[in-house]
């Protein structure tokens, strides 16, 4: 389970300080498929990176399975990222001079790669439909294929948590659909918690947890919706513009803003 308790984050941008997060609170149960949505600059990615221990909050606490990321040592944070968290980026961010298989194995490179890890990487690439692309380099792969490699890289460590920042942002809608299918299938198979930052609400389903961030706070939080009537891809939206894929406040069933 993930608990974010009164987290603040400010950083310097040029000569001014930016308050990216302002006392944010939220909870994500283990095994959930969660979305963080909101307008640009609202603090979505900042929250995502804090969940991955890629940065430290200015104030507050972040607990992942009982581990407090704020008080973790640097070495423990490295271990946490290496073993418990997988990342998927909008720009795929594969290493250009490594093959697909080697990219999947990147987390293990510093300590040496075992035959077992190599076999697991091959199996993961097979699961995402790239069994005939193992030795291909990123420049030989399409965007969708690169993102599938990135998904395999995130999952190779069998993480508790996968964090994805706009995973379909650079893909066409058909490829985006495929990627979400894979993500949902993988989440189902491995019972991993998935937290995805997105602008594109088409992929949200009624069972998903949605955190709407605005001005550094959770403006809306929605959990499971029984009839699914207010969701895109459903019949109609209730007071939302979600069906056109744009961010918009006003959807969801509960409000916990500024807790």
């Amino acid at each position, binding site marked *: 389970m993930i608990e974010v308790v009164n987290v603040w984050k400010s950083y310097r941008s040029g000569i001014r300080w930016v308050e990216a997060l302002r006392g944010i609170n939220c909870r994500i149960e283990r095994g959930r498929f969660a979305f963080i949505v909101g307008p640009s600059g609202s603090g979505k990615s900042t929250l995502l990176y804090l969940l*991955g221990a*890629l*940065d430290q909050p200015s104030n507050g606490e972040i607990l992942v399975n009982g581990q407090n990321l704020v008080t973790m040592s640097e070495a423990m944070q490295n271990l946490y*990222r290496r073993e418990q968290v997988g990342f998927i*980026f909008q*720009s795929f961010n594969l290493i250009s001079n490594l093959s697909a298989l080697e990219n999947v194995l990147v987390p293990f*490179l510093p300590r040496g790669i075992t035959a077992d890890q190599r076999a697991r990487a091959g199996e993961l690439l097979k699961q995402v439909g790239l069994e005939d692309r193992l030795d291909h380099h990123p420049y030989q792969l399409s965007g969708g294929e690169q993102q599938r490699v990135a998904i395999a890289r995130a999952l190779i460590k069998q993480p508790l948590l996968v964090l994805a920042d706009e995973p379909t942002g650079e893909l066409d809608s058909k490829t985006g659909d495929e990627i979400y299918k894979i993500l949902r299938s993988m989440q189902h198979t491995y019972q991993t918690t998935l937290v995805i930052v997105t602008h594109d609400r088409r992929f949200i389903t009624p069972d998903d947890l949605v955190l709407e961030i605005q001005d550094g706070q959770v403006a809306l939080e929605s959990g499971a919706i029984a009839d699914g009537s207010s969701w895109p891809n459903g019949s109609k939206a209730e007071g939302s513009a979600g069906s056109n894929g744009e961010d918009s406040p006003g959807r969801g069933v509960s409000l916990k803003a500024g807790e």
Partner: protein
Amino acid sequence: MGVFAWRNLLTRPLRTVLALIGLSVPILGVMGLFSVSNGLRDLVGETLSQIEGVMIIRENVPSPVFSTLPASLADDLRRLPGVRAVAPEVWGIAPNIEGRGMLVRGLLSKKGMGSVFDQPLISGQDIAAHMNLNSAVFPRALKEKGEGRFLTLEDIGKPNIVISRKLARDFADPQGNPRKLGDSLRIADKNYTIVGLYETGSLLLDVVIVMDIETARSVLNFAKDSISSIYVEAKNPGGYDALSATIEKANPGVDARSMNEVKANFGSLMGQVDKLLMMTVSLALIVGIVGIINTMLMSTTERFVEFGVLRTNGWSEANILTLVTLESAFLGLLAGIVGCVLALIGTTIANQFISGGVHLGINPSLLGMGISLSVIMGTLGGLYPAWRAARLVPMEAIRIGSH
């Protein structure tokens, strides 16, 4: 990780090649300068290895050419215990040979640095005394590689000379052919008959015209009761250092140089030369290190996203530091190998054009030093960029790199 670091270098071939050039040139410079130093060491070492005895000259002069001693000193030395043979000599720079004076010879020389050493010298030898030596250099060189005969008692007072094959070539006959046995060589205003040709292989020895001591006095205008030096052999071959000390103690104002002492002095001199070389070379090395820092800084700045991604996948700061430092160390290794190969090629070519026995030498230890130095430079040059890359906060690295 080593393979990954190596591939990172190959991913940017143009930059890697430019960095290699920047770093391998100072290494080439180091190798070149030290090959000259090695060449001189080998030359002198080879020369000294042919001489066993003690050379007696006046104190505080660099060589027999500038020394004057009383001829009577030879008799004093013969009386010292431990002395087996004593051979007086007269030395001097040869006057006009075939109408060419010292200045003209230098100007006409096309042999580059060889001309510094190959001014012909005259060595006038007390033939009777020299025939009693066991370790005389020129007779042995003539016997082993030369032709004709060495000077004997019948040459006393006669204009007969023994010269090196090198001098025979340098002072060829009017048709351009090297001088042969029986030919004459005009020294000052007199003709001298060549009775022997020797070859020592040493630039420092193959410039000597050997003749009878009285004849040499006449050519060099040397006083009858004076000599330049005395070559002394000990009864005990291992006792030369002790004999030198005994001679110097008994004869104040003379310098008795055993070859061990000469070798030590030369080694010390070359040590100082090496220090000067290192100081010069270190400037080039600093430039090389700055080049590596610049290259690696550019490389790491372009790869902020990559480092951020690696950090998100659990790579520690130390892992990033190791990766970048390995890359620059590999760069140093490559530059070292390139620099050494270029130096080997360069010295091989240069040796074809340098005459007189100086042989630019690159030995395995010099190659090892060049490569080690280059790897150290590469590693040092990579440390700051590596530290900078490792210190990046992963989130910042991804953000900065994405924009």
